[in-house]
C-alpha cells in the first residue's frame, strides 16, 4: 500500500509540473505580444539601433529627407517629410514614424523619412529591422537601401534594395525588390510574400536581407522567401541589366502617403498612421555562412 501511495504521489507531481507548463504557455500565448524572434545567423553586429532613448533618433546614424522632393520623391507621393516630433520620435523603446493628415507647406499630409547616407554605409551583410506596419488605402511604408554613390551615379544606376515595401490596402502582403539599370520602377525584380493567417499591422515582424557578392536573400521572420542573383537580373532583362550590388549602400526608412505605387488615401483611411520600429540591426557579411 505504501508503495502504491508513493507511486501515486509521484504521478501527481509530474502532473503538477505539466499543469504549470500549460499555464505558462497560456499566459504567453494570450497576453504577451513581445516575444523576441531571433533569426540572424551572422554574428558580428556592426550597427544596433535599439531606439531605447526617448526623443529624436541618434543623429550620428540617422539623417532626414525634408520636403516633397522632386515630383513627390519621384512617385507623386502626397506627404511633406519633416523631422518634427509629430512625425518622428522615439517612445518606450520604439521609433515611431507617423503620417498625419494636416495642411503643411502646401501638402495635405506630413510624415518622415530617415536615412543613414554618409553616416552608415556598408557593402554586404545582414540588414534587418523589427517593425509593426500601419494600414489603410494609400499608406506606403518602406525599409530599403540605396547605393552610396547615388550623387555621382544617379538612380537607377546606383541601385536600390527594397527590404520591405507594403501597401496599406494589402495588409498581409510584403514586397521585396531590387532596382538597377535596366530593371527599375515598375520593372524592378520583385517578389511578394503573403503572410498566412496573420497581418503585418497587428504585430511586429522582422524584415531582413542577407546580402553577399552575388545574391540578395530576402527574409521575413524566420522565412527565406526569395533569392535574387545576377542570373535573375540577366534572365529578367534579357542580359541588359547590370548587377550593381557590389558596393556600399545606405539605409532608408519612411512612411509615404499616396503616390503611384499605392494610390491615394480614401475616405476610409484613418489618420494618423504609425510605423513602429523596434530596432534596426546590421551584421557584417560572414562568408563562411554562405559557402555551401
Amino acid at each position, binding site marked *: 500500500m505504501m508503495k502504491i*501511495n508513493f507511486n501515486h504521489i509521484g504521478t501527481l507531481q509530474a502532473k503538477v509540473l505539466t499543469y504549470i507548463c500549460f*499555464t505558462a504557455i497560456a499566459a504567453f500565448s494570450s497576453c504577451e505580444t513581445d516575444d523576441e524572434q531571433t533569426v540572424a545567423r551572422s554574428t558580428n553586429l556592426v550597427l544596433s539601433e535599439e531606439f531605447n532613448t526617448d526623443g529624436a533618433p541618434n543623429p550620428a546614424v540617422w539623417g532626414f529627407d525634408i520636403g516633397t522632393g522632386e515630383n513627390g520623391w519621384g512617385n507623386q507621393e502626397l506627404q511633406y517629410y519633416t523631422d518634427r516630433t509629430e512625425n518622428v520620435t522615439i517612445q518606450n523603446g520604439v521609433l515611431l514614424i507617423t503620417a498625419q493628415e494636416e495642411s503643411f507647406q502646401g501638402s495635405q499630409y506630413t510624415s518622415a523619412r530617415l536615412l543613414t547616407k554618409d553616416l552608415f554605409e556598408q557593402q554586404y551583410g545582414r540588414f534587418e529591422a523589427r517593425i509593426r506596419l500601419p494600414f489603410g488605402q494609400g499608406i506606403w511604408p518602406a525599409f530599403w537601401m540605396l547605393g552610396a554613390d547615388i550623387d555621382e551615379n544617379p538612380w537607377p544606376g546606383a541601385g536600390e534594395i527594397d527590404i520591405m515595401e507594403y501597401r496599406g490596402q494589402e495588409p498581409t502582403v510584403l514586397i521585396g525588390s531590387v532596382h538597377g539599370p535596366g530593371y527599375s520602377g515598375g520593372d524592378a525584380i520583385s517578389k511578394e510574400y503573403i503572410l498566412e*493567417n*496573420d497581418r503585418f499591422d497587428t504585430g511586429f515582424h522582422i524584415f531582413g536581407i542577407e546580402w553577399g557578392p552575388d545574391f540578395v536573400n530576402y527574409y521575413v521572420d524566420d522565412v527565406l522567401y526569395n533569392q535574387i542573383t545576377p542570373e535573375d537580373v540577366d534572365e529578367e532583362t534579357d542580359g541588359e541589366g547590370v548587377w550593381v550590388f557590389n558596393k556600399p549602400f545606405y539605409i532608408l526608412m519612411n512612411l509615404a502617403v499616396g503616390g503611384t505605387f499605392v494610390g491615394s488615401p480614401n475616405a476610409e483611411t484613418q489618420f494618423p498612421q504609425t510605423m513602429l520600429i523596434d530596432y534596426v540591426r546590421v551584421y557584417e557579411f560572414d562568408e563562411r555562412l554562405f559557402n555551401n
Partner: protein
Amino acid sequence: MKNIRNIHLRFIVLFSLGIAIFTSCERDFSDDVQFATFSSNGDIFTDSPVGLTDEFFDSFDPNEGANPEGFGTDDNEAFEGSSSIRIDVPAPDDPDGGFIGGIFLDRGDGRNLTGFDALTFYAKGSITATIGEVGFGTDFGENKFAVTAQNIRLSTDWRKIIIPIPDPSKLIQERGMFFFSAGTQTTNGFGFTFWIDELRFEKLGTIAQPSPAILNGVDVVQQAFTGSNLLVNGLAQTYNLESGINQTVIAAPSYFDFNSSDNSVAIVNELGQVSVIGTGTTNITAQLAGVQATGSLEVTSNGSLDFAPSPTRPAANVKSIFSESYTPDTPINFAPNFGGSTTETVLTNNNGDNVLAYTNNNFTGITFDNTVDASGLTFLHIDVYVQSAGVEVGLQIRDIGANQELETNTTNGLPQGDDVDFRFDLTGLTVGQWTSFDIPLGGDLATQKNNLGALILTDGPDFIFDNIYFFTE
C-alpha cells in the same frame, strides 16, 4: 486513498482556474464557474448540413410575406465537393411569398465559437444581384448576439464572403448559425437564384483593426426628461479584412459595454436602453471588446415633462397623425432625411406617453405613408412644448395632390406640381409648458385637402410635439 483522490481533484480545479485566468486578460471568473463543453465545430454546411436541426432551414413567417418554398440543396452546383445550398429569390408578387429568408439553428444547445473570428462562405448568383442581409446569431429567441452584414454583392462566379464576428469571446453558446434575407430590390423585381457553399465559422487571423460605432458614429445631443426612455441604436462593428476592405456589420447591443458618465441623470442597460432618472447632463458612450466606439449620446434632462393636455374631441371627428388618444389614420415617417436637414428627431417615451422631440431643427417634416382625406375636416391640432425662450416653429400643412408625390421647388421651398400648402407659425410659446394650437385648414387647403401628405417644419430649433391630429368641430 480517499485523501489522495481529493488532492488530485483539487489540482484539476486549480488547473482549470489557471487556464481561465491566463487565457483571458481582462475577465475574472467567479470561483463557482462551471465549464460547460459546447461543440466548437465551425462547419455549418459543407456538402450537407453539419449539426443543424432536422428542418435545417427555418423560414421567416410566411404570414409576413416570407417564401418558404425557394430553399433547397443543389447537387449540380458546388464550390467544393458535390452539393451546395440553392436559394431561389421570388418576385415580390409570388403567391408563395415575395421574399425569402430564415435561419439555421444548431441542433444541440449551441456551439462555442470563441475560437473563430468570422463566418465565411462562398456565394454565386445567377445574376449580379445583392443579398439584402446575411449574418448569424439570430435564433428566433433573444437574438442576443445577432450580427448582420447588408447588401452582399453576388458575382456570377463563386466568391468568398467574410462576415467578421464583432467579439468572438461573447459566443460561448450560440445556436444561430446562419441568417439570410433576400428580395428583388436590386433587380427591379426579377427573381434570381444564388448558391452558398462551404459555410462555416473560421479563424482567419486576418480580421483586424476593429472600429466599433454607436449611433452610426455620430455625436448626438438630445433633450430628455426625467422618466423618458431613449435607445442607443446605430450599433456597428467594422473590421479591416485581408483584402483591405473595411467590412461593417450591424451588431446586437449585447456585444457592447455601455456607460453613462452620470448615473444620477440617466442609466443605460446592456441593451442600450437609456432611462432618464434625474436632472443634468450625461454622456452615453460604449466600448466593444475594450475598443471605444465612435459616436455618443449627450442627454440633457431639465426635470420632468408634464403630459400634454388630453384630447377630448370624439374620435369620430378626428383623423389622427400622432397621439396616444386616437387610432392613427396613417403610419408616419418623422425622420424623412431631407437633404441639408440638420434636425435630430427622437420618439421619446415620457412616462408612457410618446412625444416627438426635435433638436437643432432647420427643416424637417412628418410624412404620411398614406394620404389623409381631410375633406370633411377643418382644423389641425398640435401641442407644442419648449424649454427655452424665443422658439418659433414654422408649420406647413401640405396636400400632395392626386399624384401622391411630395413636390417641392428646391430653390424657394414652395410646393409645385399638384401640391398646395397652408403655412402657419407656432409662436407665443411659453417656456416650460404645453401650448395647444387649432390651425384652420385655410389658404389653398380650403379647396384641396383630400390628399394631405406631410407637415413641413422649419426653424425652432428645439421643441417637442404631441397630439397631432386633424379634426372638425
